[in-house]
């Protein structure tokens, strides 16, 4: 496989991730569908690629005092325990089966994102409408008096 295709896939995944959306959820299907990378390998690539990017982001957020270490301290122990458990389990699952399960997972994530996008649209509309009403009232008020 040509190296520049891999760089391109990473570029696209990073682009989406940098915009605050799940970069990994897109990088994995790009690697498997377009570049023929095996499903387990693609997932491992995503985990490893996240580490340097995540590290830089965390350093910046720490500087800006945006990290909640109390929450981190409680959540991290059960999270690591189940992550290791499920990563061990995934090694036992065949590539084709894992690919299908991953596809189902993407559909759930996609539907969830669609729901959130629609919610944002509704909220934005409300925000836009409120000042227009105020403006109309104000202009009517000034016209009448």
């Amino acid at each position, binding site marked *: 496989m040509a190296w520049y295709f891999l760089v391109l896939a990473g570029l696209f995944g990073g682009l989406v991730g940098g915009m605050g959306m799940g970069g990994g959820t897109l990088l994995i299907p790009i690697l498997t569908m377009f570049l023929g990378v095996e499903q387990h390998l693609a997932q491992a690539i995503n985990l490893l690629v996240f580490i340097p990017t995540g590290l830089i982001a965390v350093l910046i957020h720490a500087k800006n005092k945006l990290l909640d270490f109390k929450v981190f301290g409680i959540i991290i122990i059960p999270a690591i325990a189940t992550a290791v458990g499920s990563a061990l389990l995934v090694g036992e699952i065949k590539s084709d089966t894992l690919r299908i399960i991953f596809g189902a997972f*993407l559909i759930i994530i996609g539907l969830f994102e669609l729901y959130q996008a629609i919610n*944002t649209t509704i909220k934005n509309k409300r925000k836009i409408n409120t000042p227009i009403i105020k403006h109309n009232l104000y202009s009517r008020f000034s016209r009448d008096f």
Partner: protein
Amino acid sequence: MTVSKISGLVVAGMVIGVINGFFGGGGGMICVPALLLLGLKNKEAQATAILIMLPISIASAIVYYSNGFVDWWTVLFVAIGSIFGGIVGAYLLKKLSNNVLQYIFAVVVLSAGIRMLF
């Protein structure tokens, strides 16, 4: 911190761990809304989610590596692209409408999911 918040965090942690270990990603997409539900502000939730995802990803990656699922050259090339993409993405975020991006992302993820199923 209340008992219900602590138990909420423990359950959230378990779910995030299962997802990220099993799928090699996607934990952050569950982590951010979970932290928002548990009362964190938007920016804090996003930043803390990355802090949480970091050790989880390292732990999962170690397991994947010990199972023989790592090809370092591929990782290197993808990582190079990803770091540049990340910088450009963070810059573009300020320029583009977030809502339109949300729709595009949702549709792309949905179609990728359907394509992978069949």
